[in-house]
């Protein structure tokens, strides 16, 4: 601590009083005078005495700074810890059984149980044992109990679909063992996958608390590393083809070794041979596949199954819903604006089908069929349509409207009632860039690209309740939103063709229309594919939460949970059904890809880990690393003395003030 760079830097501060005092003795006693021809040196060197007295003040100030620096360093006095030695005390055996997805392979889990039984048999009388299941989370099965109690719980240990990260496991273990007083022997029973090694090796070293010795006992499972097949990904192309990527770890794909079967909604559709591949990666393409409307369960299953069968199948969800209809009211269905809007909305991830209709021929009674609509030019809206639009928005519909060339004569914006301050022809106005974007709005999450858009706008004066989403540098609104009743009205103060704005020909237009459509249609997209042992965010499903059904058809939420739950743990592989206010959604869950790679950590790495934890401990042996044991505990064996430095600082401040005041009284006068 005393050689910490910041501490040494703080000590440099001690030079400050010395420098200031040196300055004072030179400058304050040396004064300019017009001439010294009439002066005579005094015989007594008074200023030398003064320097000596100032040195006392300087010393006080330096001492104050030194105390301050030491107080910030939080110095401690150590009490010699009591080292507990194995043999003189009981031992706490911590059995950590890997239950991650890879433990489904072969007989690994049974082997793990046998290892545990063997360890329990070797326990001495008086020793205690704990049993933990280690996967994505660390589950306590038995805490500090007898060997018999642990033995009873061993059959309950089961592999799940999570992923084990050894760094996360040790971090969780540190919290569990914080209050343990005995020496600990950590028995880790696992296949020790290379992909499970922590990114930082130091994260795998458990803390040593209360001077307790920790010894690591590595129980590695699986003498051989089998080749393991998995379906890595599934992609649906053009709503007619399914492309599956098949990978094998620790081997290569031989011709005819595997077949890939495609199932749609539980029905087998096609089976193809997986082509041979020396790199271990092959692609299988299923053509002319017919999908049902809406959500489809798309499974790819490899046969025959290998020793780790659960990753031979891949679950995927494909949304084959037809494009959502969007009403576009326009003065001219062949205008450029219609073309731009149709193109942008058809490329949105959800897919929208624009139904362009002329305003003068539009029957307002069909408005309610559409969750939202677009008006290309508000200047062409008739009073009857404006009244119908007002009712439509109040009732929960949403509108995106623009001011086109027919808005030249507008003095008030229909529906919103906003004044148009300068209804000059669009062509006479100057273009300006965008300067202010409210990127917190859901329709503007991707706001990059707006700063290059040039827009000539109608100067609309917003009302207090309006939210300005985009404005120009003259604080002129470009995009305004008003919430009316249960609906939204979004106004673009320029045209949607490229006569007054280059927005429709900019890339940002496509992403903006996609986000705006999703926002105005009140659709929230769930992530349709998740990894096992991750959490499904129910808030993404829109509005409140909903009911969730796991792949076995079991409802996961209670009645109260359906309105309050924010997230659900997806611990099974397969299809989860999520019932939301806007409909039913499917979520496919697959195991973490890294769990399929069964390559183990090298023997050297395991040896280094063991050595780092407890010196030269060998498997099954219980020894104490006295060096680690003597490392003091921060909580119990140290006495903080920074408070004494604070008291000393208070005394120094008092002394410095008194002495400084004396000097101030002494140094008065003119000349």
């Amino acid at each position, binding site marked *: 601590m005393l050689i910490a760079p910041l501490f040494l830097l703080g000590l440099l501060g001690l030079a400050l009083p010395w420098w200031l005092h040196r300055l004072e003795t030179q400058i304050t006693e040396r*004064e300019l*005078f*017009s001439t010294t021809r009439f*002066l005579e040196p*005094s015989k*007594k060197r008074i200023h030398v005495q003064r320097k000596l007295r100032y040195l006392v003040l300087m010393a006080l100030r330096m001492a104050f700074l030194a105390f301050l620096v030491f107080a910030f360093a939080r110095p401690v006095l150590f009490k010699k810890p009591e080292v507990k030695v194995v043999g003189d005390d009981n031992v706490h055996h911590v059995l950590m059984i890997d239950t991650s997805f890879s433990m489904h392979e072969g007989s690994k889990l049974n082997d793990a149980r046998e290892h545990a039984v063997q360890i329990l048999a070797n326990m001495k009388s008086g020793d205690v044992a704990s049993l933990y299941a280690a996967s994505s989370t660390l589950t306590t099965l038995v805490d500090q109990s007898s060997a018999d109690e642990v033995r009873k719980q061993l059959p309950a240990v089961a592999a799940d679909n999570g992923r084990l990260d050894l760094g996360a496991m040790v971090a969780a273990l540190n919290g569990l063992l914080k209050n343990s007083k005995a020496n600990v022997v950590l028995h880790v029973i696992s296949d020790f996958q290379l992909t499970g090694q922590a990114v930082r090796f130091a994260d795998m070293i458990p803390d040593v608390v209360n001077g307790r010795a920790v010894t690591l006992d590595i129980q590695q499972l699986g003498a051989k590393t089998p080749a393991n097949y998995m379906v890595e990904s599934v992609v649906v192309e053009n709503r007619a083809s399914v492309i599956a990527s098949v990978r094998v770890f620790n081997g290569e794909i031989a011709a005819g070794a595997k077949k890939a079967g495609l199932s749609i909604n539980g029905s087998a559709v096609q089976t193809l041979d997986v082509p041979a591949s020396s790199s271990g990666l092959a692609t299988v393409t299923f053509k002319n596949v017919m999908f049902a409307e809406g959500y489809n369960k798309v499974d790819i299953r490899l046969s025959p199954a290998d020793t780790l069968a659960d990753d031979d199948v891949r679950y995927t969800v494909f949304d084959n819903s037809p494009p959502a209809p969007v009403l576009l009211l326009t003065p001219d269905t062949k205008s450029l604006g219609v073309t731009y809007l149709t193109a942008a909305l058809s490329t949105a991830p959800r897919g929208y089908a624009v139904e362009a209709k002329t305003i003068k021929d539009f029957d307002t009674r069909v408005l309610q069929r559409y969750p939202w609509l677009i008006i290309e030019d508000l200047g062409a809206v008739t009073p009857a349509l404006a009244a119908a639009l007002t009712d439509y928005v109040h009732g929960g519909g949403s509108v995106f409207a623009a001011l086109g060339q027919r808005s030249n004569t507008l003095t008030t914006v229909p529906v919103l009632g906003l004044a148009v301050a300068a209804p000059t022809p669009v062509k006479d106005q100057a273009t300006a860039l965008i300067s202010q974007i409210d990127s917190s709005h859901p329709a503007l999450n991707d706001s990059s690209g707006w700063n290059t858009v040039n827009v000539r706008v109608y100067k609309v004066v917003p009302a207090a309740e309006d939210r300005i989403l985009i404005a120009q540098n003259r604080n002129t609104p470009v995009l305004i939103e008003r919430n009316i009743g249960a609906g939204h009205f979004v106004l673009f103060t320029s045209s949607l063709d490229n006569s007054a704005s280059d927005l429709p020909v900019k890339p940002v237009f496509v992403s903006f229309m996609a986000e705006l459509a999703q926002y105005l249609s009140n659709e929230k997209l769930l992530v349709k594919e998740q990894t096992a042992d991750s959490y499904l965010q129910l808030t993404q499903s829109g509005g409140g939460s909903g009911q969730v059904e796991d792949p076995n058809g079991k409802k996961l939420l209670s009645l109260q949970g359906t309105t309050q739950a924010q997230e659900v743990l997806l611990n099974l592989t397969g299809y989860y059904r999520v019932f939301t206010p806007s409909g039913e959604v499917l979520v496919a869950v697959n195991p973490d890809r890294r769990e399929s790679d069964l390559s183990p950590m090298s023997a050297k790495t395991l040896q280094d880990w063991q050595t780092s934890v407890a010196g030269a401990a060998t498997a099954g042996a219980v020894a104490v690393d006295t060096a680690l044991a003597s490392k003091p505990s921060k909580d119990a064996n140290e006495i903080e003395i920074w408070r004494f430095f604070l008291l000393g600082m208070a005394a120094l401040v008092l002394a410095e003030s008194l002495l400084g005041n004396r000097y101030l009284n002494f140094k008065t006068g003119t*000349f």
Partner: protein
Amino acid sequence: MATTAPSRSPMHLLDPKVLASLSNLELVAKMAVEGFVVGLHRSPKFGFSQEFVEYRAYGEGDDPRYIDWNVYARTDKTYIKRFLGETNSHLMILLDSSASMGYGSQGLSKLQVGKFLAASLAYMASRQHDAVGVMVFADEVLSYRPPASRSGSLQGVIHTLDKAEALKGTAISKPMTRFQEHIRRRGLVVVISDFYCDTQELLDNVRPLAVQGQDVILFHLLDPSELAPELKTSTLFEDMETGQAIEVSPVFMQKEYRERINAHISAIQNAASGMNCDHVLINTSDSLDKALHSYLTFREKRG
């Protein structure tokens, strides 16, 4: 409640601190002179009267502009009109800008007060139609402007004064020698300095001017802290010209220093008296009326 501003005498304009607040040196001179003249409770034209005195027959060398042509028409003889105060004197101002003139304990240096005084004298002389010149010197002549009475010469003098800065050491012999080389005509010579020089050196250099027939007045500028210093603690003083540092005690400054500076002032006075020059001691914290009054008295006496 409305309050009325207290009426202030024009004499306050002669306070150097008030003058220092004016940025333009010409304005300073004008304010100082007008304030001084009004303060006399006499005609603002005092000293500058153009009152007719007598006729004199035109002689060779007289300016034909002053011939009274009406008299000539009646008598066919040329007469010159003479006026009171008409002397056409030359005024030469010598301003010391050595480093010691930069000293000032009241926020105003001796050089600044010297500039105010010189500008006021130049303005006063200019109104009297006297030719005015200026020489700024330290250990050599730093700038020189010969006497002139034409329009615009006053601004030139004031500009020269304005540029003066306290920079170098004092050595009066070299500038005075140069000045004697330039001066041709008899007139008034005003020397503004703190006279931190040897008395004998001053005598040697000013006496030739007196011999030439110049009327010399010495304005001796000293700061109140130079005349009566107050020191409560021992202090190290650094000479502004030489950089020499001397540590002095309050007791010395209280007694012995004052005796020495007074002796020096007396020596300068005596030397001036011996050369038939006027010596005026100016405390820079006092107003300028004493200096201006001395000048007018001196001019009246000599003119």
